[in-house]
């Protein structure tokens, strides 16, 4: 058991995580509390997701020390396999359910939706 972990890696990970968490909070809080909306809804969702992924990578590297083992990298291999299944579960569920929602909606909704998709205005 070599102590690969260092104080420096924990401090860097903690500082970056704090920075990312607080910046996400400030963006969202600003959007919710102020009347003028500086950013669009879609942009903010993309921003939250991007910053969440960055923070995940930060914590995986600096706290969980992923990818810092010596070869063969079994931990990384198991992690990669988990990610494949995760993408199938989450992506697949959302895909199937949105498809189902589209096919189960009332005929009026279908008309409105198709008109929106095709850019037709009455």
């Amino acid at each position: 058991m070599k102590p690969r972990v260092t104080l420096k890696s924990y401090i860097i990970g903690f500082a970056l995580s704090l920075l990312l968490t607080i910046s996400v909070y400030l963006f969202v809080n600003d959007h919710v509390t102020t009347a003028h909306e500086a950013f669009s809804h879609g942009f903010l969702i993309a921003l939250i997701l991007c910053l969440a992924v960055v923070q995940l990578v930060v914590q995986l590297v600096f706290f969980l020390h992923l990818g810092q083992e010596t070869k063969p990298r079994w931990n990384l291999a198991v992690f990669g396999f988990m990610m494949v299944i995760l993408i199938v579960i989450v992506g697949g569920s959302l895909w199937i359910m949105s498809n189902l929602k589209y096919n189960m909606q009332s005929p009026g909704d279908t008309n409105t939706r198709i008109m929106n998709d095709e850019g037709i205005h009455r």
Partner: protein
Amino acid sequence: MTETASTLKTIVHAESDSKTLLGFWVYLMTDCLLFASLFATYAVLHNNTFGGPGAKDLFSLPFVLGETLILLTSSFTIGLGILAAHKQNKKQVLTWLGITFLLGAAFLSMELTEFSRLVAEGNNWQRSGFLSAFFTLVGTHGLHIATGLLWTLVLMAQAWRMGLVRTTVRRLMLLSLFWHFLDVIWILIFSIVYMMGAL
């Protein structure tokens, strides 16, 4: 001769410890898949409020930020505990684990406060699909935190009585992996449930 034997013993121990760590890592990855299913359920159901309140109406953002910062700090302090364990500094290990326990307990009590407030307002898990998914996802995380707190107490007692022998240090490393993992999951809950819900 005895020197060779002790070197060999060290190598054998290091091998078996790294196997234990890998095994625990595989468990964490399967746990991650459990949370992935719960996140997928939440993502599918989050708009099905059945005429009841949605995420926008229910959650207090500063409160959730407080919870997040507390858990993040506890993830840092358990890391400091591991560094102390590698240095064989028993007093520091007990101090950092104690701080981690207190921060974790504060987090859990905040989460339970939020839950009891929601239930008192009539927004329990039976109210809508959205609330069922919310309580299942966040409740499962809280259950993991409660288990982690119990584990921390047990390991503090073990470190206190037996000192920082090899098995204790190994168990401390497993606990720290578990605790960091729960912090990672919470970051996803914070971003997806609370921050995206507030928009």
